[in-house]
């Protein structure tokens, strides 16, 4: 697999060079640590700080969600590896406005251990920490083991809600509660057609047969839950939506937000074809789409595949979803013109 790379061992550091330079108007390193980045326009006294983070290789996740109205700081690890406690603590300190700090990250053994160690260290420094683990991948574990599920692209919605809650001045406890609700009401299923390849190996992490696809694929190139024959786009969406409908208790007239996300190499053309069917399936149940995003929001290097996430809205979540934010990749009801030409 060919890639634009220099020394593969420098890939994360070089990406950080580019990323920090490119998003200079939104964020900056905390001190000299480039693995801890803080929003220029984020933390403020009295506001609960929102810290997100995880491994790299998911761009624009997580760094694209740092900015006014969304996350205050992000801690970044190596490719597909949780950051160590040190940058997470730095983020907590940088994000802290005296009202406590909320950690939101995906439920993976490595992330949990590192963020927990960081939470202990931050609390020793007098910063109250609450944590919400994202667990939106509904096929990664049966419903009896909801807390065992992993967090995937649906963290987009969970971050958005958490960022809005923090920005609105809610207390740490309130922020935690509503973020937990957002996570509980977010449902994601992913499908991969080809595995991703690490810069260091430039080989597929594993092989998916020429006529096969992997259902329930994780965002770290972990195998999914079952290997199946490739089917049509509509059949794939139907399988995904059937899984989601099995868990989501939506009534006719309910509203949802939809995210159709590329894992990296799947182009927009195909995402739109998937979105088309998602809309048909929701419309057939009289469920309305309040807002949608179609594109690259949480990738897995160069994986060929896509995921569909549905956030089952209620009045509070709808308000928080529409709350203004401005980050490198997400501007909603732009909070203020700031004179910088930025996408």
């Amino acid at each position: 697999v060919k890639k634009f790379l220099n020394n593969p061992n420098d890939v994360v550091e070089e990406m950080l060079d580019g990323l920090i330079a490119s998003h200079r108007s939104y964020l900056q390193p905390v001190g000299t640590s480039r693995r801890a980045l803080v929003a220029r326009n984020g933390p403020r006294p009295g506001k609960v700080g929102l810290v997100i983070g995880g491994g790299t290789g998911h761009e624009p996740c997580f760094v694209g969600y740092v900015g006014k109205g969304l996350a205050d700081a992000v801690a970044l690890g190596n490719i597909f590896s949780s950051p160590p406690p040190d940058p997470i603590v730095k983020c907590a300190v940088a994000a802290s406005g005296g009202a406590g700090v909320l950690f939101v990250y995906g439920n993976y053994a490595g992330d949990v251990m590192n963020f927990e160690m960081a939470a202990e260290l931050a609390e020793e420094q007098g910063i109250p920490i609450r944590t919400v683990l994202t667990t939106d991948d509904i096929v990664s574990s049966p419903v009896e083991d909801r807390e065992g599920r992993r967090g995937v692209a649906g963290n987009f919605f969970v971050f958005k809600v958490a960022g809005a809650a923090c920005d609105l001045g809610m207390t740490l406890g309130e922020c935690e509660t509503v973020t937990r609700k957002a996570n509980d009401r977010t449902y994601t299923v992913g499908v991969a057609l080809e595995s991703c390849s690490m810069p260091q190996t430039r080989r597929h992490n594993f092989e998916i047969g020429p006529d096969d696809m992997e259902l329930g694929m994780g965002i770290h190139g972990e195998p999914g839950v079952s290997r199946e024959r490739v089917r049509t786009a509509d059949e794939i969406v139907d399988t995904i939506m059937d899984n989601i409908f099995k868990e989501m208790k939506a009534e006719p007239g309910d509203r949802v937000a939809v995210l159709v996300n590329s894992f990296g190499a799947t182009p927009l053309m195909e995402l739109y074809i998937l979105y088309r069917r998602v809309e048909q399936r929701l419309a057939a149940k009289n469920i309305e789409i309040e807002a949608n995003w179609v594109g690259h929001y949480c990738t897995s290097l160069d994986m060929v595949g896509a995921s569909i996430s549905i956030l089952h809205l209620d009045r509070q979540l709808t308000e928080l979803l529409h709350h203004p934010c401005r980050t490198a990749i997400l501007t909603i009801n732009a909070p203020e013109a700031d004179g910088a030409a930025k996408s």
Partner: protein
Amino acid sequence: MSETAARALAQMFERMSGVIETEKDHLSELDGAIGDGDHGITMSIGFKAVTAALAALDLDSASPSDVMSTAAGGFLDAVGASTGPLYATGFRRAAQALAGRGHLDLAACRDMLAAMSEGIRDRGKAQRGDKTMLDVWMPAAEAAATAVANGRSKPEFWKAVEIAAENGAAATATMVATKGRAARLRERSLGHTDPGAASAAMLIKAMAAML
């Protein structure tokens, strides 16, 4: 004598780093089958950071305990991931177990292995049979305890520890993962050796060769 023990440990870490470097691709491949394919890379970065941290340490004045806690810090700051907290905690516990000791006699080695294994267990909250590195460290620590209790010689001690580690690693292929990334694969993880267990057996082999 204290310098010698510290130096021996530092050399052990260098050996570990060398072995991981050689087996890096193999470990990533194992991780690719049931995890996210980065285990070799993570271990390589981690042990390079350990040897770099140890190179900055004055081994003439450092105690064995100092070496272990320096290794813990170096490893953790460089990698994060699952292995970062697990090995950092293991090394930190080993540092505590070695505190005040200048000799690396078999009792010290036994205590160090026990501390490693407990540290990893406490941090990861896994149990034996969960298909993790613990399925190597626990039997290795037990073999060490038995060998000392039975008054075995140094070569016998390390032979027993190595065999226990290798058997433990091999046994993970017959287990269904319940911790870590592979847990989501459930039955599909069967037949695959756990990458963390495989690397643990390599680390223990390096210990056996150097201590």
